[in-house]
C-alpha cells in the first residue's frame, strides 16, 4: 500500500500544472455555457438587453397583480401577461415556454422549469402584499397592523412534466452522455500516455525493480482518477450552485441527482476504461507510437457516445438504449442519463452496477497482465496477445 501511495503522490505532483490549467479552462467554459443557457432557456432578454417575463393568469387573479409585479421589477425588466381559459391550457403554455409562471386564482402559483430569480421573487412578494391588504381590509386593520400580520399561506406547485419530459430533462440525458464520454476519453488517454511515457523513458525498469506492476497501475489509476473526479465534482458544483443562486426552481434537484450519478459512473467507467488505456499504453515503445494504439481504443467509448446522444435526443427509452445501459462498455455513458430521466428501474441500475463491478474486476486482472508484460518489454511495439502472454509468464512462480 505504501508504494501505491508513493506512485499516486508522484503522479499528482507531475500532473499538478496541467490539472489546474485544464480545470480553470473547463470551469470557464462551463460558466460561459450556463450563462448562454440562461439567456436561451428563459428567452427573456431582448437584443437591447431589456428583459421581459411572461406571466400566465387563470381565473380570478387579482387585477392589481400585474401592476404590483411591474412596480417591483428593476429597470429594464418588463412583464407580459396572458390570460388562459383553463389551467390545462396555461400549463401547456408553460411547457412550451410561452410563459414562465402561471397564477391560478388568488392563491396558486405554477412554476415553469426555468424561472428567473428576480421574476419569482417579485411575483411572490406581490401576491403576498395583495393578500395581506385584502385581509387587512376585511379585519379593518391599519397599515401598521398589516405589517405585523403573518405572510399569507400561498400554495406552490410545480408543473408536472409531459410524457417526454421537460426540456431540462431531455437535455440532461444527452449532457450526461457528452460529459461522461469526454471525461472517460480525456482521463483514459491521460493514463495511457503516462504509461507510454514511463515505458519510453525506460524509467519503468527502475520502478519495477522495487514496485509490483499492479501497484504501479493502481497508483496511477487512483491519482489520475481522483483528478478526474475532482474536476467532475467542481464542474457539478458549479452547475448545481448556479441553479440554486439563479433560483431555477426545478434545476437543483435535477442537476444534483444527475451530478451525483455521474460521479458514481465516472468512477466505475474510469476504473474500467483507465485499465484498458493503461494496457494500451504499455504496448508501445514511446509516446509517439501511443496515439495510434490509444486512438483505436477510443472507438469503444465513441460507439456509446454516438448512440447515446442520438437515443436521448429522440426522447424515448428504447429497448436498444436499455440494452446499452446494461453493457459495461457503454453503461457509464448511457445509464446516468436514463437515471436522470427517471427511465431506469432500480433493478436495472443494480444490475448495471453489478455487471460493471464484475467487468472492472476482470478487466483489471487482464489489463494488469498485459500491462506487466508490456512495460517489461522495452523493445518494439507489442501485440495485445504478446503482452498478455509475457505478463502471464512473468507472473508465474520462478522456474526451477
Amino acid at each position, binding site marked *: 500500500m505504501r508504494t501505491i501511495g508513493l506512485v499516486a503522490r508522484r503522479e499528482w*505532483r*507531475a500532473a499538478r500544472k496541467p490539472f489546474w490549467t485544464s480545470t480553470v479552462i473547463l470551469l470557464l467554459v462551463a460558466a460561459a455555457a450556463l450563462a448562454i443557457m440562461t439567456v436561451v432557456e428563459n428567452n427573456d432578454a431582448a437584443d437591447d438587453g431589456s428583459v421581459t417575463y411572461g406571466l400566465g393568469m387563470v381565473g380570478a387573479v387579482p387585477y392589481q397583480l400585474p401592476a404590483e409585479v411591474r412596480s417591483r421589477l428593476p429597470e429594464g425588466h418588463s412583464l407580459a401577461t396572458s390570460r388562459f381559459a383553463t389551467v390545462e391550457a396555461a400549463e401547456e403554455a408553460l411547457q412550451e415556454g410561452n410563459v414562465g409562471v402561471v397564477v391560478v386564482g388568488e392563491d396558486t402559483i405554477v412554476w415553469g422549469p426555468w424561472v428567473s430569480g428576480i421574476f419569482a421573487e417579485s411575483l411572490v412578494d406581490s401576491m403576498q402584499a395583495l393578500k395581506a391588504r385584502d385581509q387587512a381590509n376585511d379585519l379593518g386593520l391599519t397599515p401598521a397592523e398589516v405589517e405585523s400580520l403573518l405572510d399569507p399561506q400561498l400554495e406552490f406547485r410545480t408543473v408536472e412534466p409531459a410524457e417526454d419530459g421537460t426540456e431540462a430533462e431531455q437535455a440532461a440525458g444527452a449532457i450526461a452522455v457528452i460529459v461522461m464520454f469526454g471525461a472517460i476519453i480525456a482521463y483514459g488517454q491521460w493514463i495511457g500516455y503516462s504509461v507510454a511515457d514511463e515505458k519510453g523513458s525506460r*524509467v519503468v*525498469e527502475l*520502478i*519495477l*525493480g522495487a514496485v509490483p506492476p499492479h501497484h504501479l497501475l493502481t497508483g496511477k489509476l487512483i491519482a489520475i482518477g481522483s483528478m478526474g473526479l475532482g474536476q467532475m465534482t467542481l464542474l457539478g458544483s458549479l452547475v448545481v450552485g448556479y441553479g440554486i443562486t439563479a433560483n431555477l426552481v426545478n434545476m437543483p434537484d435535477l442537476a444534483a441527482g444527475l451530478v451525483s450519478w455521474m460521479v458514481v459512473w465516472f468512477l466505475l467507467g474510469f476504473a474500467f476504461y483507465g485499465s484498458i488505456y493503461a494496457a494500451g499504453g504499455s504496448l508501445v515503445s514511446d509516446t509517439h507510437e501511443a496515439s495510434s494504439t490509444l486512438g483505436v481504443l477510443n472507438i469503444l467509448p465513441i460507439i456509446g457516445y454516438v448512440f447515446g446522444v442520438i437515443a436521448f435526443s429522440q426522447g424515448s427509452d428504447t429497448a436498444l438504449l436499455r440494452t446499452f445501459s446494461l453493457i459495461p462498455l457503454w453503461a457509464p455513458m448511457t445509464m446516468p442519463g436514463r437515471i436522470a430521466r427517471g427511465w431506469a428501474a432500480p433493478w436495472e441500475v443494480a444490475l448495471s452496477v453489478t455487471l460493471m463491478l464484475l467487468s472492472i474486476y476482470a478487466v483489471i486482472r487482464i489489463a494488469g497482465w498485459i500491462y506487466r508484460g508490456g512495460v*517489461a518489454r522495452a523493445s518494439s511495439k507489442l501485440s495485445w496477445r504478446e503482452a498478455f502472454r509475457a505478463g502471464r509468464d512473468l507472473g508465474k512462480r*520462478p*522456474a526451477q
Partner: protein
Amino acid sequence: MLRFDGLHKRFGSVVALAGCSFSVEPGQMLGFLGPNGAGKTTAIRTVFGLVRPDVGEVSWEGRPIGLAERRRFGYMPEERGLYRKMQVRDQLVYFAKLHGLDRTTAEESTDRWLDRFGLADRAKSKLEELSHGNQQRAQLIAALVHDPVLLVLDEPFAGLDPLGAASMAAVLEERAAVGVAVIFSSHQLDVVEDLCEEVVIINKGAVVLSGRIDGLRADSPLRYVEVAGDDVSWAHDVAEAAVVEQRSGRIRLAMKDEVDLAGLAALASANSSVSQFIMEPPPLSEVFTEAVQE
C-alpha cells in the same frame, strides 16, 4: 551471493540465454563481458524480474529473488531511464522511498550522493536540463541511493568522459570494498581490466570463459614478445612468430606459448644490440576476442 544457475531463455526463434551460469560474491567486482547480442542484458534483466527464464533460476543468498530482495539491489539499466521533467533531487528521493527508505533517510542519502557527485547545485534542476554526463551520474545515484547490497550496472561507463569514468570507477571500488557485490557489463575492456579481478565472458547466451583476469591471460596459448634494439629486421624471419607492430628500433611479435624463448633471445642477441626483451601474456581484449570467436 548472486547466482545465475543454468538460465535458458528464448524469444520466439531467438535464443537469448542457453545455459548461462555464474555467480558474484559480496565484495567482489565482476566484469560481465560479451559481444552485442550475447545475452548480457537479458541475463541482467532476470535479476529484476523483467525477464523470466524458461529454465533455470537466479538466486540471492541461496533463495529465489523476490520483491523484498530486489528492493535491496541497485540497478542501472542499459537504456538510461529517469523522469525527464522531474527535479533531480525529487526523483532520487522518490526512488529511495520506493526502495523502502523513510523520508528523512531518503533525503539525507540523496543529498549526500548529490554532493559526492558534484550535483548538489543542480538538485532543483529538471533532469533534461543536465548534461549527458550529469544525467549519467544521476542515474548512478538512483542505483546507489538506497545503499544496496548488490549493484547491477549495464554499460555504466558508456558515454562518460575520462573524468566521469574515473569518478564512477572510484565509487564502484568503494562500494565493493564495503562488501557490496558489484556486477557490470562493459565493452571498455581496459576499464574492466583496471577495475576487476574476475570476469565472465558470455557468447550466444552461454558462459564461454570465466575466472581471474590474470589467470585467463596466463592460460591463453598466445604470447607477445617485444624486442628493442638497433636492428630488429631479423624478427621477420622467425617462422613461429607474426609481427604485430614495428616502430623504429622496436618490434612486437605474437606467437604460441610453446615457442623456444631461449632460442629466440639468442637469435635476437646474435643479430642486434638488444636493449629490451619482454614477453607477456595477451591483454584482456585478446582473450575476449579469442573466447568469442571460438
